[in-house]
Every structure is written in C-alpha cells, then in structure tokens.
C-alpha cells in the first residue's frame, strides 16, 4: 500500500514539475504507438472490409489465422522481428534495429490482427444489413467498401482504440527490438520494466499511473471527437 501511495504522489510530482525525462519517454510512447496505429489501420480496415464482402477460397482460413494471431504473445513477435531486422537477418541492411522504426514495425504486427478481427465483425454485420440495397444500386467493389467503412466508422474507432490499448501497454516486443536505450528507444512500458528490475517500485508505479492517464486521455479525446461529430450531423 505504501508503494502505491508513494507511486501516486510521485506520478503527480513528475507531471506537475514537467519532468523532462518523463515527457520524453511518454512522448516517445505516444509517437511509436500512434504511428503504428495509423499504419495498422491503413492495412487492417481495407483488409477487414475485403474479407467481409469478398468470397474467396482462403477466406475462412484468413479469418481463423487472424483470430489466432490476436492471441500471439508480443515477445514472439519481437523475437521474429528482431531476427529479421538483425544485421545477420534478411532486412539487416536497413539498419533499423534498436530504433523507433523497429518498434513501430513490431507493434503494427501485433495490433493488425486485433483491429482487423474486430473491424471485420462489425463490417460483416453492416454488409448483411446493406446487402440488398447496394447490390440493387449496382455499386462497384470500391464504392461498396468505402460505404461500409464510412458507415461503420464508430465501430472501427472502437477497433482502433483496442489496438491502441494493446500497443501502448505492450512491453515484450519493443523491449527486444527497441533495446530500451536511454534517449533513443526508451518508452513508458520499458522504463517501468527497468525500474521494477531495480526494485524502484514507487517510480515504476508512478510511470504506470502516467501510462494509465495517457491511455485514458487518448480514449477521452477520441470519444470527444466522435461526440462533437454526432451532434453536428444528427
């Protein structure tokens, strides 16, 4: 209990005094996860729409694989990305290992299955609802996908937020591919792991509370954006 209380006060002071190091790693956490989220959405949402509306032979297999990948331990993703990006690996020449880019790549791989699966379910439901109308209107494939994506945007936002949550709180993969290098690849979660390892529970907890606060703030911000849109339009 003592640790939790001192963690809360320490978090409070870190934020209040605008601790430079805290803001650096919190900013890097946001940068890495939001970038990964943006890239993941560009991959996931069209993919989800495609498997919702298109009948192809491997469709069931793709869905099963995506659902299975949702539970993939991040540390395994980290290891695979490490092996690929290592200087001795196939993409070693890029030299991105132990940079934020490597962390972004790992997080994209981790959150794409999650976002795709959630998005697919809501798009599929909407497609059942819209099917007769869109077929009658003789829409093209791309018009169909754009309509479904746009009209299920609230559900897609939820999918994206789930992806953000999984990304921002993830430590196993980015520890391996980022290396937790001070001032280069250290983010909130790896800093928490580090401070825990040092037995500095209060500081680790403080960082944890900052992480929670950050996640809540991002969620609120996005919901607030959705809210204003709803009021403006409907």
């Amino acid at each position, binding site marked *: 209990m003592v640790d939790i209380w001192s963690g809360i006060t320490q978090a409070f002071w870190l934020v209040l005094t605008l601790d430079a190091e805290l803001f650096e790693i919190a900013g890097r956490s946001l940068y890495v996860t939001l970038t990964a989220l943006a*890239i993941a959405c560009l991959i996931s949402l069209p993919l989800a729409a495609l498997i919702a509306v298109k009948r192809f032979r491997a469709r069931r297999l793709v869905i099963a694989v995506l659902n299975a990948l949702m539970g993939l331990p991040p540390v395994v993703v980290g290891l695979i990305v490490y092996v690929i990006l290592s200087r001795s690996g196939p993409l070693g020449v890029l030299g991105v290992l132990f940079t934020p880019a490597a962390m972004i790549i790992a997080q994209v791989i981790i959150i794409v299955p999650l976002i795709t699966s959630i998005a697919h379910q809501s798009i599929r439901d909407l497609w059942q609802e819209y099917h007769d109308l869109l077929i009658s209107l003789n829409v093209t494939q791309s018009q169909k996908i754009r309509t479904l994506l746009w009209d299920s945007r609230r559900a897609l936002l939820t999918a994206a937020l789930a992806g953000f949550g999984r990304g921002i709180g993830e430590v196993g993969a980015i520890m391996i591919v980022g290396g937790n290098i001070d001032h280069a690849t250290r983010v909130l979660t790896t800093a928490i792991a580090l401070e*825990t390892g040092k037995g500095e529970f209060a500081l680790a907890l403080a960082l944890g509370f900052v992480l929670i606060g950050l996640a809540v703030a991002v969620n609120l911000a996005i919901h607030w954006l959705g809210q204003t849109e709803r009021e403006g339009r409907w």
Partner: protein
Amino acid sequence: MKHLFSGAIAAFVMANAAQAADVMRMAVTTSFNNSGLADVLLPEIAKDLNLDVQLLVVGTGQAIKLGEAGDVDAILVHSRSAEEAFVEGGYGSHRTEIMYNDFVFIGPKDDPAGIQDAEAATAALAAISNAQASFVSRGDDSGTHKKELSLWAEAGLDVAGFGGWYNAVGAGMGAALNTASGMPAYIMSDRASWLNFGNKGELALLYAGDPVLFNQYAYLPVNSEMHDHVKNDLALKLEGWLTSDRAKALINNYKINGETLFVFNAKEAE
C-alpha cells in the same frame, strides 16, 4: 500505403544515418547498468570523445548473441569463458580487461543457514544447502548465473539434485532480487546491483570478501572483418578512453553509500 510504410522506414534510416557519426551501440550486462556507473561514465564519454554510447542492457548470453549478429559495436560483459569463445569464434577482435567488482551473498537478516561467519564462499553455499534454506538463482545463463553455478560445483554440490528450496527464476538481477526479497531467500548478487536495489525488505548482505567472488569485466569490440558495418573506429576510440587514467579515476572513485564498487585494472592501451 506501401509507399507510406517504406517511406517511414526510409525516414528513420536517414534520421539514423544523419547522427551516425558519433553514435555507437554497446551491449552491457544488467549488473553493470544497475550499478549506476554508466550514468557517471556516459556523460564524460560524450564530453571527451563527442561520442553518444547507446546502451543495450541485457544478460551476458544475449549480449554475446547481439555481438555475434553484429547488432552492436562492442560488448562489456563478465563471463570469461564466454568472452574467450567469442574472440576465438572471430566475433570479437580482442578482449580487454577493464575493471572488477565482487559478488556478495544476500539473505534473510536472521541468517537461518548461518553463512555470516563462513570461512569461504563455497562453505557458505554448503551451509545453505545443508540447511535447505530457500535460495534464488538467476537461472538465465547470465554471467552471474554462470558464476554461481561454478561456485556450487567448487563446493562439490550438484545443482540438478537440489530440492524445492532452490529456485531458478530465469530472470534478471533486479527481478531475482525482488523474488528473494519477497520469499525471503538467499541469493548471490553483484555488489553494485545490491547497493542500488530499492526493495531490500528483510534482506541483508551476509557474506563477501572471498577472492573467488571477484568479477572481472572485459570490453570486446565486435570484429569488423565479420561485420563491415560495425563502427570499429568508434569502438577502439572508446576502448582507449576506458583504459585511460581518466576512466581509472572515475571508476575507482565511484561510490554508493561510501562503498567503493569497482576496481580499475586495465593496462594502458598501447
């Protein structure tokens, strides 16, 4: 979309290359990093050499792997046999001894196995084994873990035959200390990690001083013949600094709670 993705990578590669002139990567062990010495040395290195040393804090096993893969430019570890194999395999150009610290035995304050007055490190371990007192082992193939195993062997004891009191946790020094603190249990730690550890709880330093517990750190630049992208020139520049009188003064004067942690023993680079 593909363009955006590869564009993002390219941007990072370039950003990386832009500052590459004075950045190198060194894999170090957790025990070195936990000591806090790095926080003293790195700013001085940055000042003296205009060199930004990025530390990858990992176990000795992973540090060696990173060096073998060419993902770092140098390693600073403490496991002599692994280091020699690393050089023999051609992964490192050479091995330079820098400094040593020592391992200590930590345990519950009331010392149920009575190791406080042991005559030697091996005798202390034998006492723990006889008392079947809880013991936490790193169990992660790190330098510290290897050292601990060799001490059990010297004491004539077989780790494989130990009962439930012997806990190989497969974790870093800090996590292992957290476990020992929670049980509470005996554990072997490097002095620096122990002194900096913030969750001591019911634990206390019970035994130290046997020369067999000295822990030699060595610096190994990654062989540029093996990996032509490694920054061998920077690694050598750093080696020159680490073996200099300036490093000697900083290392020998580094204290926690008034206790000296490291003893500089490098030979001046020729």
